[in-house]
């Protein structure tokens, strides 16, 4: 079974290669870590995102078919607040395309190359 750190690292690496949906991180936490309790899954998800956002390694937004990435342009704290608010509004576990996507920042890509 993987560790949270491994999930975080994989998520960041994937975000440097493609846009990664929130749902994808949730799936990894459930499948790789074996967590099934919704509250735990949500807590771990937010914990990983909080760390990556706070370190400036990822940015949040919505990708479009044009290839553009529409950033939320919010602080890490506000980003998590908006995410949690929309998650509450959804009333279920986010699925493909729900709420938000992530991509790595330049700092995030440097971080990956250095690790």
């Amino acid at each position, binding site marked *: 079974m993987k560790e949270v750190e491994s999930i975080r690292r*994989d998520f960041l*690496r*994937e975000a*440097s*290669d*493609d*846009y990664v*949906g929130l*749902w*994808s991180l949730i*799936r*990894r936490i*459930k*499948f790789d870590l074996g967590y099934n309790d919704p509250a735990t899954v949500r807590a771990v998800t937010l914990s990983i995102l909080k760390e990556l956002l706070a370190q400036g390694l990822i940015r949040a937004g*919505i*990708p*479009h*078919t*044009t*290839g553009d990435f529409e950033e939320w342009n919010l602080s890490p704290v506000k980003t998590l607040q908006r995410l949690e608010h929309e998650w509450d509004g959804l009333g279920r576990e986010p*699925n*493909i*395309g*729900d*709420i*938000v*996507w992530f*991509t790595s920042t330049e700092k995030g890509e440097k971080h990956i190359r250095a690790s």
Partner: protein
Amino acid sequence: MSNPQTLNLYSYVRNNPLKYVDPFGHQDELHKKKGKKGDDATDPIIDPSSVKNPGISVKIILLGPVSELHERSSSSSNALSMIMGMFFSRPVTIMSAHLPPGSWAAKHQLVPDPYAAVGGGIFEEGAEAAGGIIMKVFGWLFTKEVAEETGVHLTETLLKPGGILIGKAGTNASIREVNGGVEAAETLFSNLTKGGEVMTNPNYPGTLIKMQDGQVFGLRTIMSRSPGTAATIDVNSHLVPEISKIKFNPGGP
């Protein structure tokens, strides 16, 4: 020797493919259907009138256990192809959908790559042309309905053929990279999402389909950060949770 017909090397299952099957080319056996109470093995097995779209050719996909298929002889396959062709009065192609390179089918240039069977659109054509009939003849999986009945879901058959995840691992093992372009992605997506419902989600830059059992698949054909990727299928499946996305790279994974 209980039946002199078995001495004739040029006959196949005593010239009665409706009642017998000989998957290994050595001996025939009565067809048996698992788990269905009252389903007598001597019931009529094939009804040609039930075949839809009579104008198209029948493509038979062998989705049986790899070990069995490895042991099959080419003469057995040719005999099946010929007999089924005569029966359906149209060309019959015997193909295999989950044989790894080096397998019997690969050596005989049937389908060397598990994905090739999907890319060829065999599921669509075959399912309409033959439906469950082929299962009754060969005892192997064929259509979605047959797969579900026997406990192997189409999703698993397509994404985890023979128990092996398709493609190669990308930046992590849940990302699968396969050789192919947009057309190949669309074909696989179409096969994965038969009977699903298109979802509207402005946050998804592509086509999103939800299946009745809760699985969700998305197809992105434009938006990707990967320069070598032509299309991506996002996968959220409880049947194959090991995969989160499949990337189609025209130049190979």
